[in-house]
C-alpha cells in the first residue's frame, strides 16, 4: 500500500468533518427559517456605517444642509442627486430596507389595505404572477417593479402603456422611492411607510 494508515485516518476524519460542515452550512443559511427572523435593528445603528463621504461625486449637491444629521447619513443618494432629479423629493428619507416596513394602498378599490415588505422584490401588474396584482383598465400585464437595490427601494416602470407616477411625475428611469410618497399606477396609488 502506498498510502499510510495515518493518512487514511486523517482523510477519513476529514471527510466526516466535511460532511458535517456542509450540513451546518445549510443550517446556518437557514437560521432565520429555523429560529425566526432577527429583530430589526434600531435606526441609529444602521445609519452610522452607511454614509462614507468619499463615495459622493465631488460636485454633487449633497442635501445635508436641509436634513437632520441621521437622515443625511442614511440617504447617500449618490448618482441620483448628481443631476437635478425631476422628482423634487430629495429632502425626504429614501425608503430603505430598514425604515420601510409596509406597503399601504392609499386610493383605489382596496384603499387602506397594506402588506409587509420582506426585502423580496415586488412586481406589479395585471398578470397573476405579480406580487401585487392590480386589475383595472389602465394597468399593463407587467407594469412596474419595486425592488431593493443597494438597500434602497427603487421603482422601475416596465415599459407600461399608461405609465407609473411617482409623486405626480411619470417615471423614466428606475428611481428610489421616498417614504410616504404616492406611487400611482392606473387608478390605484400606494405608499411605502415605516
Amino acid at each position, binding site marked *: 500500500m*502506498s498510502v499510510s494508515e495515518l493518512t*487514511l485516518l486523517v*482523510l477519513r476524519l476529514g471527510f*466526516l468533518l466535511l460532511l*458535517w460542515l456542509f450540513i451546518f452550512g445549510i443550517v446556518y*443559511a437557514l437560521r432565520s427559517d429555523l429560529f425566526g427572523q432577527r429583530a430589526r435593528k434600531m435606526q441609529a445603528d444602521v445609519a452610522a456605517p452607511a454614509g462614507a463621504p468619499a463615495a459622493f461625486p465631488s460636485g454633487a449637491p449633497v442635501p445635508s444642509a436641509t436634513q437632520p444629521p441621521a437622515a443625511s447619513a442614511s440617504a447617500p443618494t449618490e448618482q441620483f442627486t448628481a443631476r437635478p432629479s425631476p422628482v423634487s423629493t430629495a429632502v425626504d428619507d429614501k425608503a430603505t430596507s430598514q425604515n420601510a416596513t409596509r406597503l399601504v394602498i392609499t386610493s383605489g378599490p382596496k384603499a387602506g389595505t397594506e402588506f409587509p415588505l420582506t426585502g423580496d422584490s*415586488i412586481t406589479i401588474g395585471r398578470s397573476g404572477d405579480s*406580487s401585487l396584482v392590480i386589475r383595472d383598465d389602465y394597468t399593463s400585464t407587467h407594469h412596474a417593479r419595486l425592488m431593493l437595490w443597494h438597500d434602497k427601494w427603487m421603482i*422601475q416602470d416596465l415599459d407600461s402603456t399608461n405609465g407609473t407616477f411617482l409623486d405626480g411625475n411619470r417615471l423614466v*428611469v428606475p428611481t428610489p422611492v421616498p417614504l410616504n410618497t404616492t406611487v400611482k399606477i392606473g387608478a390605484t396609488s400606494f405608499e411605502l411607510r415605516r
Partner: protein
Amino acid sequence: MPASSNRSTTTDAPPRTGRVRRLHLPQKLRNLELFLLLIACGINAASVVLVQLGALGRIDTTLVFLGAGLSALVLAMHVVLRVVAREADPFILPIATLLNGLGIAMIYRIDLANGESGWASASVRQTVWSALAIGCAIAVILIIRNHRVLFRYTYIAGFVGVALLLLPLVPGLGREVSGARVWIGVGSFATFQPGEIAKIALAVFFAGYLVRNRDSLSMVGKKFLGMRFPRLRDLGPILVVWALSMSVIIFQRDLGTALLYFGLFLVMLYLATGRLSWVLLGMSLFLGGALIASQTLDYVNGRFRNWLDALNPDVYGADGGSYQLVQGLFGLAKGGLLGTGLGQGRPEITPVPQSDYIIASLGEELGLAGVFAILALYLLLVARGFRIGFAGNDDFGKLLGVGLSFVIALQCFIVIGGVTRVIPLTGLTTPFLAAGGSSLVANWIIVALLLRLSDTVRNQPRLVV
C-alpha cells in the same frame, strides 16, 4: 449589468425614448445554491477518491469522467433554474446531489470488492441512471411552469398511478425479483419499478382529489371520544386506498410499497381535513390488515419472525431467515462511532449491500457520525419540502408539497427502520442512495416538482386589487 453601466443609464438616458433598461438584481438564492452545489460536488469527488485510496491504495481515473459528467449535469440544472425558476429553494438541489453522489461512491466501493468494472458494474449503471434522472428533472422544470397545471390532470394522474401500480401483475411484462412482483421488464435487460413513479402520480391525485372533496370529509360526522368521526358513507375513499394497498401486499407481495402508499394517503387526508380521527381510523385499518396478512401470508409472517427473533440461530440460519438483517447489524456495529473509513470495511458480506442495505454499508464505513449526517441531509430535505407546503397559498400546492416530501420521509423511515430493526424489514429503496434507476428517476422528479413549487410560492401575489 454592473453598477457603473447602470449609473450611465440613470444619468445619460434620454427621457422616454426606447426601452428602459432594467436594473440588475443579484440572484441571492441561486448564488447560494451554486456555492453549496460546488461543495457537494467536491464532497462527492472526495468520497470516490477515498474509496479508491481505501480499497485500492491508489487513485484510479476511470470513474472521474463519469463523476465530472454528473457534476456538469447538476450544474446545468442549476443554470436552468437561474433562467426559469429564479426564486426556487436553494437547498434542495445541493442536498439531492450530495446524497446521490454518496450513493454512487458506496456502490462503486462494493463493485470494487466484487471485482466488477465497466458496464457490468452497478456503479456505472447508477451513474448513467443518475444522468437520466437529472435529465428528467430538468425536463420537468422546463415543461411544468406552474404547479397548478397538475391540478387539471387530477383524475388522469390517479388513473396513471393505479395503472403503474398494477403493471407488474400483467403476465409477460411483470418480473419477480426476490419474491416481490413489483418490476416490469422487456426482454432480459430493461427492468423498471413502475411503483416508484406511481407514488408521484398518486401524490398529485390525492392532492387534487382532497382539495375538491375535503369539505364532506372534514365537516360532518358524529362526535365520539372528543373526536369527530366521519360518516359511514364518507369512508369510501379511504377504503378504496386501503383495498389497493392490501392488494399490493397480497398480489405483489410487497409490504413496504403498500405501507408507503397508504401512509401517503393518510397524511394528506389529515392535512386536508385536520382531523385526527382519520389517522386513527386509517392506522387501525392498516394494522388490522397487516396483522391478518402476517397470520395468513407466509412471507409477511417470515418478515415478522425475522424482526422479532433475529438473533435466534434457527431464524438466522433458515432459508429466507434473518441472515441478511443480522449481517447488516454486524456491519453497523463494526463501523462504530466513526466508521472503518471508506473502502476499508467489508460491506460486501451482507446480501444486496448496494440497494436495500446501502445504509448498513454506509454505516459500516462512515460510522454513526456518517449515518447521522445522511439522516440530517434527509431531515433538511424533507423540512424544506414541508416549509414550501407551509408557505404556499393555494391548497393544492400545499398538499402536493407536503405529500411529495412526506413520501421521501416515509420511505427513509421504512427502509432505514427496517435495516436497523426498528420495524419489520420491507424492500424499498433508500431515496437517492440505493442502486436502482426507477427510484432515482422518481426522486429527482420529486426534487424538480418541489423546486417548481417553491418558485411559484415565492412569486404568488400578496395582494390583489
